């Protein structure tokens, strides 16, 4: 009886150690390659990046040099159009969810739909915008690419705005209302203002995420080897250019792809760090 008991607790101790070991092992197994990937990307990108990357347009195969100046500008334009669509609508939607519609069935349904929409593959957004804008217009255009990115930003911005607003203590709202301020003014001037650093960084995060989106641009913005002058023309974009160069067989193009990847990564690291910084202090502490 005693022996059996001893054996049992020995087994339990061993099991405990084994499980701990497995958890540590899997963390090491996951983190090491991920960190390795990250460092590799930084190293490859840094050794490929030069000034010409930012100032020159792509050159034909066989010529050395060249850069992605047009793609960088193109991405900026696409993201500008996308932000103009996605950010105001997203923020307004988020304010509704957190302030005016809190707890209502409608708000819950919208929140749920936004989360589901977040998981819809970007390529599906791409073909939907293609048939919505490119087909009626008859040609690929920067505008349609911007719309695709904007639509993708709406649910993300909406949800982060809501989360940030929910972090604002109720006492702040009550104080405003106690002074006789109407609800709409209390929301816009007090609550939104208190949460604004969080809302802004949330927008930055959404911005950084869609900055790397490639799939929805393939058949909307389409890409362009030179400058584009109008929103109605096809336009180059950084992730699109990385994709084209990565699957090409030329070393010089591969180098440019790595450099482009570094630029995107820096943008994302900045956005993610900013969000973390903002949400680690003040009233927004602990928000996502």
């Amino acid at each position, binding site marked *: 009886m005693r022996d059996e008991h001893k054996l049992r607790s020995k087994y*339990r*101790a061993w*099991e*405990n150690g*084994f*499980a*701990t070991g*497995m*958890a*540590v092992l*899997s*963390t090491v197994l*996951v983190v090491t*390659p*991920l*960190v390795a*990937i*990250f460092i590799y*990307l930084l190293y490859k990108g840094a050794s490929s990046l030069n000034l010409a990357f930012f100032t020159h347009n792509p050159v034909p195969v066989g010529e050395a040099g060249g850069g992605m100046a047009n793609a960088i500008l193109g991405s900026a334009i696409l993201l500008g159009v996308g932000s103009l669509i996605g950010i105001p*609508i997203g923020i*307004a*939607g988020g304010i*509704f*969810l957190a302030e*005016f*519609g809190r707890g209502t069935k409608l*708000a819950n349904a*919208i929140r749920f*739909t936004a*989360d*589901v*929409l977040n*998981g*819809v*593959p970007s*390529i*599906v*957004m791409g*073909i939907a915008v293609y*048939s919505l804008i490119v087909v009626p217009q008859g040609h690929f255009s920067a505008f349609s690419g911007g719309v695709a990115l904007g*639509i993708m930003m709406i649910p993300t911005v909406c949800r982060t705005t809501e989360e940030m607003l929910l972090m604002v203590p109720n006492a702040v709202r009550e104080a405003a209302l106690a002074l006789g301020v109407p609800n709409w003014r209390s929301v816009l001037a007090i609550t939104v203002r208190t949460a604004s650093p969080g809302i802004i960084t949330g927008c930055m*995060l959404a911005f*950084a*995420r869609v900055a*790397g*989106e*490639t*799939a929805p641009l*393939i*058949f909307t913005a389409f890409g362009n080897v030179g400058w584009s002058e109008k929103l109605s023309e096809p336009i180059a974009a950084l*992730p699109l250019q*990385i*994709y084209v160069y*990565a*699957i090409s067989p030329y070393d010089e193009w591969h180098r440019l792809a*790595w450099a482009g*990847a570094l630029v*995107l990564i820096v943008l994302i690291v900045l956005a*993610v760090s900013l969000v*973390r910084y903002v949400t680690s202090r003040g009233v927004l502490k602990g928000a996502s």
Partner: protein
Amino acid sequence: MVLCALSIFAIVVLIASELVIRSQMAWGKFGLDFFYKSYIDTYSNQPLYWDPVNGHFSALPFLYGTLVSSFLALLLAVPLAIGVAVFLTEMCPQMLRGPLAFITELLAAIPSVIYGLWAVFVLVPLLREYVNPWLIKALGWTGFFADDNPTGLGFISAGVILAIMILPIISSLTREVMTAVPGSQREAVLALGATRWEMIRMGVLRNARIGIVGAVILGLGRALGETMAVTMVIGNSPEIHKSLLANGSTMSSVIANEFAEASGDLHLSALMELGLALFIVTIIVNALAQVLVWAVTRGTPSSAH
């Protein structure tokens, strides 16, 4: 504000209606056959699935490719992701927690095309030189690892890169769900004399299991729709092979590859129908995952007290 919030419904309706309208032609011509039928090539007597030249379209190889690569990814990612989440919530020293969470967040935000770039130049050569020969030698007799594709591109490569991409998502959601389990549960199990692992198993994992399933399903949703990285490493051929080392194609990769230069209206319509199928599947998968995760993190009374 309400209008802006309602725009989210509008977007879903808009996407659905556009896809339905544009895929009418393929639906009218093939009906449900689109999803399971194949044709026999009269010259070579081989099954033929996707033949834009003669106007034969069947989604079968893409459904197969999407399922195989996604399940391969889940197989690799789920145990590791849960291990990481257990370590981070229950065992990790406070000092490491912040940086590790930060890394996970960062990796979840890196764009698909960059993972694809890395996979093309690092992962695929690595698999081709070291892993695949070993798989062929050790497991070639099963038929799943045939030695007939020297490129290194294929289902295995796609599965591995997908696993790397969905790992941060699954593990951070699992962590969230596990943190939502109240501390009193842990204390209660520990007070009964349980070891730490027994506490995790009985007190935490059991309470969080619905949410963990939700996290896995969410990861599945991501894997099903992931486009760029997969397109770059799967080899892109519309065929069905038993071997996991063979080239394949997924629903999203064929859209990415052929959409911009589709050869005719029927071809375009068939691609649209694939997109519609992908849309419906991911909507269902994501909705299911949301419900499961919410069930835990929203604190259902039965597990909260």
